[in-house]
């Protein structure tokens, strides 16, 4: 696929929501090991809200669609996940600009704006065992692939693989943010639930675009 438009964006979000729902129990179990055990529930509510907002879009504009998704995600009561992902989607909306179709480079720019939006809400850095550890490498891989001439499908595939590796790598890390922070060393050996969710979301994005 060379470019993505609103229809594809809706498909991507719906696929991500479906994949998150299928993994709800696992994600809560991961959060039980390092945090308070509710991440599966919260990320499901967040992605359900995102899906509903995306499917309900009547503007036909990527930026407006994503802005609505962002606010609706932000409106979910649920600890850290909803402001973080809400800001991510609002960032995507800002990054999408007025384009109706985004090629690989424009997609990379959109996701970079998403990361910037999310990072406004937290001081967490790569290595701190948070969703950032999946998100940052994913978007870096996306940018690298786009700059290297890959199409959207291939670039998102690269991003998904990087997100999955990033989430895996959190196993070796000690949590410095979120409710896991207090467990310190005891978090080692468990993947971060938020990072794992991000890897599911990017994997679903890639599949939705690829298929």
């Amino acid at each position, binding site marked *: 696929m060379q470019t993505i438009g609103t229809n594809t964006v809706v498909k991507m979000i719906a696929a991500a929501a479906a994949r998150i729902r299928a993994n709800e129990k696992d994600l809560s179990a991961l959060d039980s090991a390092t945090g308070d*055990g509710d991440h599966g529930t919260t990320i499901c509510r967040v992605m359900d809200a995102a899906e509903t907002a995306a499917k309900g879009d009547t503007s036909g504009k990527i930026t407006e669609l994503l802005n609505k998704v962002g606010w609706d995600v932000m409106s*979910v*009561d*649920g*600890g850290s996940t909803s*402001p973080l992902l809400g800001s991510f989607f609002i960032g995507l909306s800002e990054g999408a600009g007025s384009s109706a179709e985004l090629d690989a480079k424009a997609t990379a720019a959109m996701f970079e704006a998403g990361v910037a939006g999310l990072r406004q809400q937290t001081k967490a850095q790569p290595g701190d065992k948070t969703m950032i550890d999946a998100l940052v490498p994913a978007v870096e891989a996306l940018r690298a692939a786009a700059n290297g001439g890959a199409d959207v499908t291939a670039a998102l595939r690269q991003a998904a693989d990087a997100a999955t590796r990033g989430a895996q790598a959190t196993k070796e890390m000690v949590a410095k943010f979120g409710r896991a922070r207090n467990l310190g060393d005891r978090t080692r050996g468990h993947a971060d639930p938020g990072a794992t969710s991000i890897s599911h979301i990017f994997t679903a994005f890639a599949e939705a675009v690829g298929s």
Partner: protein
Amino acid sequence: MVMKKFINDPKNLTPELLEGFALAYSDKVALKNEKLVCRARPKDPSKVALVTLGGAGHEPALSGFVGEGMLDISVVGDIFAAPAAPKVFDALKLTNRPAGTLLVVLNHAGDVMSSNIAMQMATKAGLNVKSILTHEDIAPGANAPAENRRGLVGCIPLYKIAGAAAEAGKSLDEVLALAERFNNNMATLAVALTTATHPASGQSIFALADDEMEIGMGQHGEAGTGRSKMKSADETAAIMVTQLLEAVKAKAGDKVLVIINGAGATTLMEQFIIMRGVGKVLAQKGIVLARARVGEFLTVQEMGGFQMFVAKMDDELLKYWDAPCDTPYMTVR
């Protein structure tokens, strides 16, 4: 352990509990937009408003202190989870007034994010809002950076004092300055004995051995630093109050406010015995127990344990602590 709780659908815990709360205290509070607990008789709009936010499951918690002399609106999230930023912004819009609104935020990641976003939205919308962050937990050390220290039961006396100053007609800057002074002179330490079950998931939120206690555990089972064998009431009281007095730099002749806040299953009987132990240490050190409260203010379901709170008081703080208020769970004549 199996969860035994009187609930209906676990998905509806928060709206149902708020409905029952507002029904019982309809003379004092009214629900707006499902999760904003507002004063039944709004404050004179010429006075500064007080708004706060936090998760449910800690009842009476923040919403229990909405009313004359304390909070104007409490924005409720879900069980143990912060409310969404747009709801906090809704509350700020509802209290919007030239005198301004003070947003009191407890230092928990979700609450801080939601309130930061809400404050950005409010600023964009031109509302006159300032915020204050409570972070009086000394479990990570009294000198740990503020961002690592949680906001615990200290928010409640802070609502009382800031709320009284607001009722007295003080300006937003004056209310904020007073609240900051109190904020900088308070400290809390929690101790856990037995776990609680998350009422939606049915899971225990932590585990302690039959003969263990843990000093420093947070409001949601966040691990502390002081796991030890069970100690007597007097030993526990002495260890905790000594650290707290040090944290607020209280010395002989100083006046303190002490609050023992039951976590849930720990009885008032025990809390009174702990209070007695605190009294003995204060007497030894020549520190004056100026005011005290013992009871459940901010709970963690049926967790066993309590939070001990100490604040160094001056005459102005005491005056506002003693001022009248009328809320579901704190009334002063």
